[in-house]
């Protein structure tokens, strides 16, 4: 059965490379090893979202039973999104679970993930903290997501106010990412973030 999996990935690989989305630099796939069991995906942050201008790298693991079971996909690039864990990069998306169909391909998976970035589903969250912020303070969510895109995905929008607050925490010996997570989780309230970090 591993035969089918490898053969199909080979074909799909060619399909993605020829696709017009690659021509537009919207998605990309690279081989990680020679036996087609692991790939590296890349999607561009969709326009008019906080992810615009960022490039998000994905780990794609192809199971032996592919395409009868979905590929295992996770974000390597850190991202602030209700349906993606800010800690592990795990994704909550139905087609990667029970709604998978054998005719789906790497291309459709990457395009679906891109669509997920453009349309979050906070009622079916992977990251409860992000989802809560998304629902209660949409503007704060957008600023935070844009900041994460700038720091981790090469996005264009620098936020000096946020960076100043992070500096305050790193000066106290807190690690950079840990400080960002704490501040993001408390709507960039420096006092509450400090409290949480030192409690």
């Amino acid at each position, binding site marked *: 059965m591993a035969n*089918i999996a490898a*053969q*199909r990935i080979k*074909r*799909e690989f060619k399909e993605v490379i020829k696709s*017009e989305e690659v021509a537009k630099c919207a998605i990309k796939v690279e081989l990680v090893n020679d036996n087609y069991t692991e790939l590296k995906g890349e999607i561009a942050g969709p326009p008019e979202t906080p992810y615009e201008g960022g490039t998000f790298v994905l780990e794609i693991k192809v199971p032996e*039973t592919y*395409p*009868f*079971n979905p590929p295992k996909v996770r974000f390597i690039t850190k991202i602030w999104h209700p349906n993606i864990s800010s800690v592990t990069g795990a994704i909550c998306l139905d087609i990667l679970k*029970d709604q998978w*169909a*054998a*005719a*789906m391909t790497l291309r459709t998976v990457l*395009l679906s993930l891109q669509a997920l970035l453009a349309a979050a589903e906070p009622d079916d969250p992977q990251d409860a903290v992000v989802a809560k912020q998304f629902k209660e303070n949409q503007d704060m969510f957008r600023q935070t997501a844009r900041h994460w895109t700038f720091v981790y995905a090469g996005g264009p929008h620098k936020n000096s106010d946020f960076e100043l607050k992070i500096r305050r925490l790193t000066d106290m010996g807190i690690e950079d990412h840990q400080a960002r997570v704490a501040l993001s989780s408390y709507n960039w309230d420096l006092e509450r973030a400090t409290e949480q970090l030192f409690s």
Partner: protein
Amino acid sequence: MAAANEPGSSKSSNGEEKEKDETMLECNICLDAARDAVVSMCGHLFCWPCLHQWLETRPNRQVCPVCKAAISKEKVVPLYGRGSTKQEDPRNKVPPRPPGQRSEPENNSGFPGFGFGDGGFHMSFGIGAFPFGFFTSTFNFGEPRPSAAPRGTPQFEEEQFLSKVFLWVAVLFICWLLMA
């Protein structure tokens, strides 16, 4: 998204169109030329082994791998191209069906009361429908009632004897009718 792609495809060159025609005969699961091709009711083409494995992977969610319409093993149409030597239903051969999953429809003979009939025990039928048959069928547990016992066996002699008895009974009956 699909709609947005439409205008571009009409402009494609001849070579690309040829390629498109070929892809129409590809299995939607392995993306290879379909072998033992079958088509679902929603019109999607698969190799039978591929579709079979898909249905086995998710026994509780039997949907088309392309459009997610409901499908089942029984409702796919096998495709036979010209010149294929054996026109056998691919569903019957490639992956052996798991035993015990499919029960044969019951052969209901219209005698719901005579439930022993299928088990090889013919006595009840013999009593109900043809009283004289009772004598022979009692000796035939476990096999369908033969039309006649082999010559030379005790059973054969008994049958011969019985038929003579019935002949005499019939003759006596007719005589009695004539005399009455």
